[in-house]
């Protein structure tokens, strides 16, 4: 007896150490996972926040009546606006003579500058004939310089900006003709090959349209399927079991396979147009439906049977019981599940690549049948672009996507907190 006690006591220190060690393994595991999360979020935010600002250059443009009259959209489309911008730049830097330097000079402003000029003239026709100071979108290299991405100490041949270009920029800075402004273009423009002009408008609209389609289809269908399985389906029936197993399996099918399904069925058989929010939404509907059904069934299960018995007891039919009593009580839970399913669909990329939503699209879609792209697909496309300016654009687009997801999840949590019932 004494002997046993001795053995236990002798082993105690060892066992306690093991206990502590085990706890620390758990803490370290959690710490490592959360550290990765922090690293991921900070690295993306640190790269992305600068894209919300954009460099602009003040240029004194002479609005030559010979070019600009009459100031109608049709006439201005023909007019040599680029020439006016170039002339203004030459006048600002009269010392520039060689052809190569002139070309470098023109690149200070973005290729979107003539369109800015056009918009200005259309808005202020009375200014024609005068010389006005316009804030024009700067080229990508200037933008990178202003945001401090350039290492001026590197040898000149390895830099994107030559010494004389840097001298021009310094002069502009001294004259307060170079400024960083909130980047509204990023929210207003579609995709572009030039980083300084690229925006998320098309992707954002495409994503919103797709979410509308997905929600409009997957929410009612998911609820209907869950109601059938939970309330009306016969128990111990082979067919019902088959449907159940099927739904659980579909929830685990890789998303890219749904993309193949969408490609073969919606584009191949039904001949719907490629790259459209309608097809994207349909494909994502099939993908989210299992999630919505599973969440909705859980919500229905949480409604206590007493509600059903009471309704049946006063003479309601089974259908009336469900639609008048059970469903209203389960609806908040179902909605929460649907929002979480939608949040997953919003971030999904692979199936959309399959149905051709990778197209390069500049004009915002106006309906479900216009070609569009989606936010995550836009991120994928920009991540592939070699130009340096796209790294910050990609990160900024990711920040927007994460903000959207955060809002959706927050809505789901608040909804659950607010409408949760204890029976």
């Amino acid at each position, binding site marked *: 007896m004494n002997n046993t006690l001795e053995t236990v006591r002798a082993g105690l220190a060892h066992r306690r150490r093991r206990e502590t060690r085990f706890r620390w393994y*758990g803490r370290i595991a959690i710490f490592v996972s959360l550290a990765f999360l922090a690293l991921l979020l900070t690295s993306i935010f640190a790269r992305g926040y600068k894209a919300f600002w954009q460099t602009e250059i003040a240029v004194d443009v002479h609005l030559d009546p010979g070019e600009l009259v009459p100031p109608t959209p049709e006439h201005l489309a023909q007019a040599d606006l680029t020439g006016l911008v170039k002339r203004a730049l030459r006048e600002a830097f009269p010392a520039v003579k060689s052809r190569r330097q002139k070309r470098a000079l023109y690149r200070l402003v973005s290729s979107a500058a003539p369109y800015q000029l056009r918009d200005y003239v259309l808005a202020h026709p009375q200014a024609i004939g005068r010389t006005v100071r316009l804030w024009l979108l700067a080229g990508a290299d200037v933008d990178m310089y202003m945001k401090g991405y350039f290492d001026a100490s590197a040898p000149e041949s390895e830099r994107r900006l030559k010494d004389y270009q840097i001298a021009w920029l310094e002069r502009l800075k001294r004259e307060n003709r170079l400024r960083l402004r909130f980047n509204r273009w990023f929210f207003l423009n579609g995709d572009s090959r030039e980083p300084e002009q690229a925006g998320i408008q098309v992707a954002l609209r495409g994503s919103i349209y797709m979410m509308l389609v997905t929600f409009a289809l997957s929410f009612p269908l998911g609820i209907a399927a869950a109601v059938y399985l939970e309330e009306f389906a016969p128990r111990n029936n082979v067919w019902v079991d088959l449907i159940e197993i099927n739904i659980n399996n579909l929830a685990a099918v890789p998303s890219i396979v749904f993309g*193949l399904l969408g490609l073969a069925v919606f584009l191949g058989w039904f001949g719907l147009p490629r790259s459209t929010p309608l097809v994207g939404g349909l494909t994502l509907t099939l993908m989210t439906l299992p999630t919505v059904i599973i969440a909705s069934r859980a919500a229905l299960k949480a409604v206590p049977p007493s509600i059903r018995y009471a309704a049946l007891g006063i003479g309601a039919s089974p259908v009336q019981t469900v*639609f008048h009593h059970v469903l209203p009580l389960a609806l908040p839970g179902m909605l929460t599940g649907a929002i979480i399913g939608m949040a997953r669909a919003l971030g999904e990329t692979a199936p959309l690549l399959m149905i051709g939503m990778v197209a390069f699209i500049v004009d915002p879609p106006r309906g479900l049948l216009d070609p569009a792209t989606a936010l*995550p697909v836009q991120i994928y496309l920009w991540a592939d672009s070699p130009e340096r300016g796209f790294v910050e654009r990609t990160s900024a687009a990711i920040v927007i996507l994460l903000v959207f997801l955060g809002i959706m999840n927050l809505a789901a949590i608040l909804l659950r907190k607010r409408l949760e019932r204890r029976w």
Partner: protein
Amino acid sequence: MQPQTLFWLLLALSAYGYYLGRKQALTVSGGKIRTLHSLPDYYGYYVALWCALPALAILSLWLLLDDKLILQWVLAELPPAYRNLPQDRLSLTVNVIYNLLAGERQAGDVDPALVQAAEHYRQLKSLGYQALTVLVLAGATAALTWARRRISPKLRARNRVETVIRIALLLSSVLAIFTTIGIVLSVLFEALRFFEMVSPLEFLFGLKWSPQIALRADQVGASGSFGFIPLLVGTLLITAIAMAVAAPLGLLSAVYLSEFARTRTRAIVKPLLEVLAGIPTVVYGFFAALVVAPWLRDFGAQLGLTISSESALAAGLVMGIMIIPFVSSLADDALTAVPRSLREGAYGLGATQAETITGVLLPAALPGIVSGMLLAVSRAIGETMIVVMAAGMTAKLTLNPLDSVTTITVQIVSLLVGDQEFDSPKTLAAFALGLTLFVITLGLNLVALHVVRKYREQYE
């Protein structure tokens, strides 16, 4: 009339039907609702359903079929020179007609017979719409009047309406089966066409994957070979790395959170971990390609290792992080499902908390944990964006995690993004890969389900 307008008109008509039906029921009852079999609303629904459903059925059937039918008619009227063309040339002709209809091509530079065919098509189509309008509206009105006539106090309107509702509910749950059948059929069908061109044995056991097809017959080194083994090895390599990260981290965090952590810590840490699961995979892909891969390459360079800038290690590592919450929440569920009595029994025998966990809880929760791991593996195999952005495109048969490898999903994407023609083995190979992916993940899911069902301990 355009089908869209027709659809809204039909809805309006059936709303009117609801109103009429309700009013009729009240009239028939003579003001005493209790003489009716059902509540007045149900008579309204009854008429509305009769008005809408058959007409909607006609409408959707028409929309599904009219293009194909009209095309057959138009093709039959073409000059014999066109009619006897082989299938692929004929579909080119059809494309020309469609382009003419969309106004994308000027009529001047095409065969006048085709212009005429396009015109014919347009006429038939508009004639079809006219017929459809008459048919649908007349049908709906007739059904409405008929249903309204049938209303009497004895009509069991509620039961009829409820039957329709039940059928609709059943149909929505059957949609899941249709989706599966759709996946299997569409993928299988295209995969079979692929296997007509490439033998299944070569696909399953071939050691070389290079799907480039020769553009010219005499081109060198581009014959196209479809050996699936390098892709499988690449996929499994990345999955193994991911699981090596996710399994210990996920399992240990689950154990800590469910057994050691205080309630408040748990309430904060668990949702934070779940944020990892909510981040879109394209973000992980970007992170892997932009942060992790360069960091690994520089780190390797310091150690004197050459790590490719698109390495299996970077992709696997990041994928592992993504899967952590998946593993931890499934393990957490399995651990919480172990009854208290087992825990208390172990404590009663004098075991420490750690000994209870390793000796009692983990073995008891093992089936749940194993099935969770299998689900995580199936997710890693099917994951696309991370590997597309961070793993690489060239199929190498290697087990070196520092090298770049390619996976099944990467190849599906690279084969299908861009221009596609549905009769080249290159495009069809993607469907064969999709089929294999589907079969592998389905198998893993079924095994996971089986493990839980068969080995779960019953504590009652």
